[in-house]
């Protein structure tokens, strides 16, 4: 990379991904390292995302760093009409790195072009959320021992699900076989199917979750939101077909793990939480290690 930012998962090569995952493994073994002593990290949340913000702030704190910022745009100068460029140029004077979440797509790329300190994208609208993708990759590699030749089932909102799109792109480097389970209205967009066709990768589409779970190495669950449906009847009809229940996991492979970017609503039955194949809470913990790895790697504190 010419500049040390993390904006899109597609900016990272396979080697860089492995570098981050190896570093994350090191932080998992030894989470408290005083590498950010005397460093100030800005966490700019132009829209609230408590989970992502706490994960970053935990990562910074475990590294002995300080953070400044805001938790939603209403408590910042943005509400007075300041442009993103002005906010970023100002905050870059106060900090060694900017971590930002913004509802507008492409905002993080633009910020990286005006900032003199590294920018990490913590989500830009429906576009990218690369630190989530890296923690997903970390969780997959940790549970499967490899990223190569896996069967991944993506379930739920595959149309708007940003985490699905980014993970799909990243996993395309590893000869993945994809299974897409979604209601008709929330199917995986054609542009991603074209992308997979070009890479020569196999994918299958299903309406029913029961059709496919037994072959899976990973089941990646996502939330289905009522407001995504143009027809509320359609939502009522389909919502229960995409709920993962304990009995559905009975004949799944021993190595299989269930992932979910969280927060969950009802798409995974709470009984599944006790199942040893449930991995989503550990996945969230892995997010802290992965973000420690990303921050220290970008700042050049870990070679």
């Amino acid at each position, binding site marked *: 990379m010419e500049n040390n930012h993390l904006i*899109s998962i*597609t900016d990272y090569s396979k080697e860089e991904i492995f570098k981050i995952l190896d570093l994350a493994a090191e932080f998992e073994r030894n989470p408290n390292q005083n590498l950010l002593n005397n460093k100030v990290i800005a966490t700019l949340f132009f829209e609230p995302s408590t989970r992502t913000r706490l994960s970053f702030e935990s990562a910074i704190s475990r590294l002995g760093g300080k953070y400044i910022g805001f938790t939603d745009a209403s408590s910042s100068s943005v509400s007075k009409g300041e*442009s*993103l*460029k002005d906010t970023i140029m100002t905050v870059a004077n106060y900090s060694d790195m900017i971590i930002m979440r913004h*509802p*507008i*797509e*492409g*905002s993080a*790329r*633009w910020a990286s072009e005006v900032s003199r300190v590294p920018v990490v994208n913590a989500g*830009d*609208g*429906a*576009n*990218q959320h690369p630190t989530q993708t890296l923690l997903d990759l970390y969780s997959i590699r940790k549970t499967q021992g490899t990223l190569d030749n896996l069967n991944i089932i993506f379930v739920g909102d595959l149309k708007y699900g940003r985490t699905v799109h980014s993970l799909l792109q990243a996993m395309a480097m590893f000869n993945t076989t994809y299974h897409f389970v979604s209601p008709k209205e929330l199917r995986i967009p054609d*542009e991603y199917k074209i992308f997979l066709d070009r890479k020569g990768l196999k994918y299958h589409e299903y309406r029913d979750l029961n059709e496919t779970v037994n072959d899976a190495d990973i089941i990646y669950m996502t939330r289905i939101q009522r407001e995504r449906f143009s027809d509320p009847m359609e939502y009522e009809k389909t919502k229960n077909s995409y709920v993962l229940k304990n009995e559905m996991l009975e004949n799944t492979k021993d190595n299989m793990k269930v992932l979910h970017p969280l927060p969950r609503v009802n798409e995974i039955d709470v009984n599944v939480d006790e199942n040893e194949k449930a991995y989503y809470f550990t996945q969230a913990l892995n997010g802290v290690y992965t973000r420690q790895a990303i921050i220290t790697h970008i700042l050049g504190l870990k070679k």
Partner: protein
Amino acid sequence: MVMNDKKLQVSAIKNGTVIDHIPASGLFKVIKILGLDKLEKQITFGTNLESKRLGLKAIIKLADIFFLDDDINKISLIAPDAKLNIIKDYKVVEKKIVEVPDTITGIAKCGNPKCITNHEGIKSRFTVVNKKQVAIKCHYCEKITDSAHMEIF
């Protein structure tokens, strides 16, 4: 090759460029992209001319104007079939077709209303992901805009 040009439907020029096979509906966008409204040379436009391939086409004749390939290729988004005749001393000395470039800066508008380029005054930037049925991918929001939804500034 015989380069005498008999079929052009507007009056001939001595030296310059003739841009032919522009879809009639795209003429004004081509004028805008090439900045012809700001030139002080003699320019002749013809539009709604019959064309077997395009239905109705437009033609532009520019006296004493020659384009760089990079500049002329910008019109490929609007007029992918455009042909250029370079005229010297009333004769066609060279024929060129336009090519879709690899990247496009500041001509097209990103079709994604939630894109930062539609919210702050930023020059749009795209990579061309399909040259046949032109489709462009935004450098910022990473969304693809196809030719049917493409808006030119």
